[in-house]
C-alpha cells in the first residue's frame, strides 16, 4: 500500500541554524499539505500545494519558513533560522484531488528539536 514518506524522522539542531524537511506524497496525489504539531496541540496547516502551486500559505511564517514543490511531486519545507519555538512535529499529508476535505493521507512526521 502506497504511503507518504518523510525524512528525516528526527532532527536536532541549534537555534539560528537552517533545517530542511522532505516529503514524498503518494504517487499521483495532486495536493500536498505541510502541518506543524506542537506538543499537546492538534496539527496546524502551514501550507497547501496543488501540483506545484501554493494554494494557501497564510499560516506559514514567511520570514523564516519556505516551502516548495518544484515539479509538483515531492516537497521541501525549510526553516532558516530555526528558533526554539519551532520545536514540533512537522507532518506532511497528501490527497488525490484538490479539496481540503478529501481524505488526507499523513506521513510519519519529522520531529524537530531546536536547542
Amino acid at each position, binding site marked *: 500500500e502506497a*504511503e*507518504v514518506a518523510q525524512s528525516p524522522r528526527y532532527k536536532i539542531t541549534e537555534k539560528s541554524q537552517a533545517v530542511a524537511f522532505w516529503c514524498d506524497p503518494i504517487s499521483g496525489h495532486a495536493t500536498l499539505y505541510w502541518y506543524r504539531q506542537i506538543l*499537546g*496541540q*492538534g*496539527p*496546524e*496547516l502551514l501550507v497547501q500545494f496543488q501540483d506545484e502551486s501554493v494554494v*494557501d500559505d497564510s499560516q506559514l511564517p514567511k520570514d523564516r519558513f519556505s516551502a516548495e514543490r518544484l515539479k509538483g511531486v515531492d516537497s521541501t519545507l525549510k526553516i532558516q533560522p530555526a528558533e526554539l519555538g519551532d520545536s514540533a512535529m512537522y*507532518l506532511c*499529508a497528501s490527497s488525490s484531488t484538490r479539496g*481540503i*476535505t478529501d*481524505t*488526507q*493521507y*499523513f*506521513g*510519519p*512526521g519529522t520531529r524537530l528539536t531546536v536547542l
Partner: protein
Amino acid sequence: AQRVTQPEKLLSVFKGAPVELKCNYSYSGSPELFWYVQYSRQRLQLLLRHISRESIKGFTADLNKGETSFHLKKPFAQEEDSAMYYCALYMNRDDKIIFGKGTRLHILP
C-alpha cells in the same frame, strides 16, 4: 473566532463500556466535521466524516448544529480503541481546516 474544542485531554474507559469523545466547534458558516485518529506508533488517519454518516470500527458521530457538537461515540469500547483522537472542522468560507487539541482515549482492561 473559529475554534474546535475537545474538553478532555484524557479519557479512561473500561473495556465493554460506552465511549463518548466530546467535540464542540465555533463557526458561523456551514461546517464539515471530521474525526482523525492516531494509534500508537502509527500515522494520523481519517476515522470518519459527518457527511458520510457512516460507522467505522463501531464509532459514529452525529453533527448537532444546535449544540455545535460532533461527539464521537461507541457503545462498547475495545482495547484496540486506545489512541489519540482529533476532531477537525472544515470552514468552507475560508477553505481551511482546523484541528482540536485531541483527546487521548485509554481503554482499561
